[in-house]
């Protein structure tokens, strides 16, 4: 069942088109990320779903009901703000209980539900603290508890983890995901961090300049992106531009040939890309594979990368156990299959 339907939503601020006819369906219980750089319209879309902004055009449905004109307080959503937006004058308990108070829930039930929500985020011991007495991670959990205590139809999260430091962020990702699973909440998660989007989501929406570039599972978005923009945004990519020969080889301008991982129309001028971990470095032979110069090894501890100069580009290649060790300055060949981008021609 579709829990959220966004149909042809546009948003215009004065002369600036922030969203251009965006259409998107979100399934019940799904965790969907909206990924994109700042200014791409992802937050605006989320605020339109919440009712914090009104669309200039198009419709929003939540749980089968058209809510386009409804104000935020009637939409039964949970919203988690980037910088928590906790009420500094109220205790943790009252931050969480306000929504229930507004719904005239009985005192006993408020108490039960708030305690339960706080237990869920492991803050039941700190119910009487003020927000200022909590750490950043604890504040974020209060914000989560505040949103989920109302059993909302959808949970909307606006870059909720970006204010936290890296370690805390990874812990919170795990917690957030398990909380979402436990409650079976339909969630939309806005972020500019591709790792976060890929690791948390059932599906990822990549947005750019007010339009959706691609919607897909994390694997689809990462391995088989449709555009150069998506390929470049969700991970490190090395692009090749050339003409398709024989349906499965890309002939580059310098004469090198790169095999394609999927067929493409012969004679078409397209772009294809490889991820660092798809490439295997070899000693040059007569195969016609792209040739480069080994520059150096970067050691990270648990893994390491090769840096290879390819014409005027420098690309990364993932080092794998058992790889041959190259000397700096040694000529190498790139053994890899490139993924042809459907919209490659336009990206040229």
């Amino acid at each position, binding site marked *: 069942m579709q829990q959220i339907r966004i149909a042809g939503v546009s948003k215009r601020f004065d002369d600036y088109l922030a969203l251009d006819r965006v259409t998107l369906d979100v399934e019940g219980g799904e965790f969907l990320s909206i990924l994109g750089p700042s200014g791409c319209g992802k937050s605006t879309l989320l605020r339109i779903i*919440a009712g*914090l902004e009104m669309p200039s055009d198009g419709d929003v449905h939540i749980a089968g009901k058209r809510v386009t004109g409804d*104000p*935020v*307080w*009637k939409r039964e*959503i*949970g*919203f988690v*703000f980037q*910088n928590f*937006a*906790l*009420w*500094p*004058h*109220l*205790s943790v*308990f*009252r931050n969480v*209980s*306000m*929504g229930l*108070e*507004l*719904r005239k829930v009985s*005192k006993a039930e*408020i108490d039960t539900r708030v305690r339960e929500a706080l237990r869920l985020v492991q803050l039941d011991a700190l119910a009487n603290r003020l927000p200022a007495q909590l750490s950043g991670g604890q504040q974020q959990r209060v914000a989560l508890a*505040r*949103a989920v205590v*109302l059993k909302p139809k959808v949970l909307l999260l606006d870059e909720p983890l970006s204010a936290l430091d890296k370690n805390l962020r990874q812990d919170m990702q795990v917690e957030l995901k398990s909380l979402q699973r436990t409650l079976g909440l339909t969630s939309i998660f806005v972020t500019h961090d591709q790792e976060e989007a890929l690791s948390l989501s059932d599906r990822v929406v990549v947005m750019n300049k007010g339009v959706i570039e691609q919607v897909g599972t994390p694997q689809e978005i990462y391995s088989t992106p449709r555009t150069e923009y998506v390929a470049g945004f969700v991970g490190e990519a090395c692009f090749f531009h050339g003409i398709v020969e024989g349906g499965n080889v890309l002939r580059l301008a310098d004469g090198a040939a790169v095999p394609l991982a999927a067929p493409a129309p012969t004679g078409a001028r397209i772009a294809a890309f490889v991820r660092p971990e798809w490439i295997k470095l070899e000693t040059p032979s007569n195969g016609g594979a792209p040739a480069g110069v080994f520059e150096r090894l970067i050691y990270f501890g648990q893994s390491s990368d090769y840096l290879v100069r390819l014409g005027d580009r420098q690309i990364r290649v993932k080092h794998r156990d058992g790889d041959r060790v190259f000397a700096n300055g040694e000529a190498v060949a790139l053994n890899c299959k490139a993924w042809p981008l459907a919209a490659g021609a336009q990206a040229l």
Partner: protein
Amino acid sequence: MIGRSKTLLLVPSVSILAAFFVVPLIWVVGLSFMSSDGTGKLVTDFTLGNYTRFLTDAYYLDALLWRTVRLAAIATLFSVVIGYFGALAIVRSAPSWQPWLILLVMLPLWVNLVVRTLSLMVVLGRTGPVNQFLVWTGIADRPIPLLFNETAVLIGMVQVAVPFVVMSIYGVLQSIPRQLEHAAMTVGATPLSAFRRVTLPLSMPGILAGSVLAFGINVESFVVPILLGGGRVRFMSVAAYETATVSNNLPFAATIGVILLVVTMAMLALYQWAVRSMTRARPVLATAG
């Protein structure tokens, strides 16, 4: 060493405070326990006579002290309500407008108070625009006396105090992120209840500062009651001035001043205490309700 040089740094400000505030205050308090012979000559023997005269006379207690405190308190209430909405309107207006709106609020402060009050007399006068409007719209069938009564003094005091209230509340409101209200709306609060539950309690420090300022200004009003009260609306500060300059009874004038100061300070302490205990009691009340 460091401690001593820090203390030394305080010397200029402390001595200025002492010279311009503490010493005159001590002198005035001392004066209030002296008396004056019929011709205004100071008699330095200690006496409680001035206080007895004031505190045992219904005229001084009711017509003077109570009227002063009552009008100042009412004017403060109006000033804070008007000032709050003014400040809110400015905070919620487009950022590019805000400096101009602030300027508009500050503008009257650069005009001499006497001139401002005199122009208010023109506005409120029998042939002034307010009365013309009332008659023209038929709300009143003939000009009503808006001047030379307590209402006129109230209007005058509100006019004086509002800019100060706006400024002190504006500062606090500006520091409250709008997102806090939005957060309340996401949990189901209408804009009104979001304001009542979030912005209003968070702006309490501004309201407190604004009302203390407004009450302090109003209770010391001098020009306004003289000009707009038409000589009928007696005020403590005016009485102190006239007692000094017309009756030439400096000790009794000092007594009026001291009583006004003590009552003002007591009122403000009481007010702060009341507001504090009210805000402290809020969470308990709300969860109970």
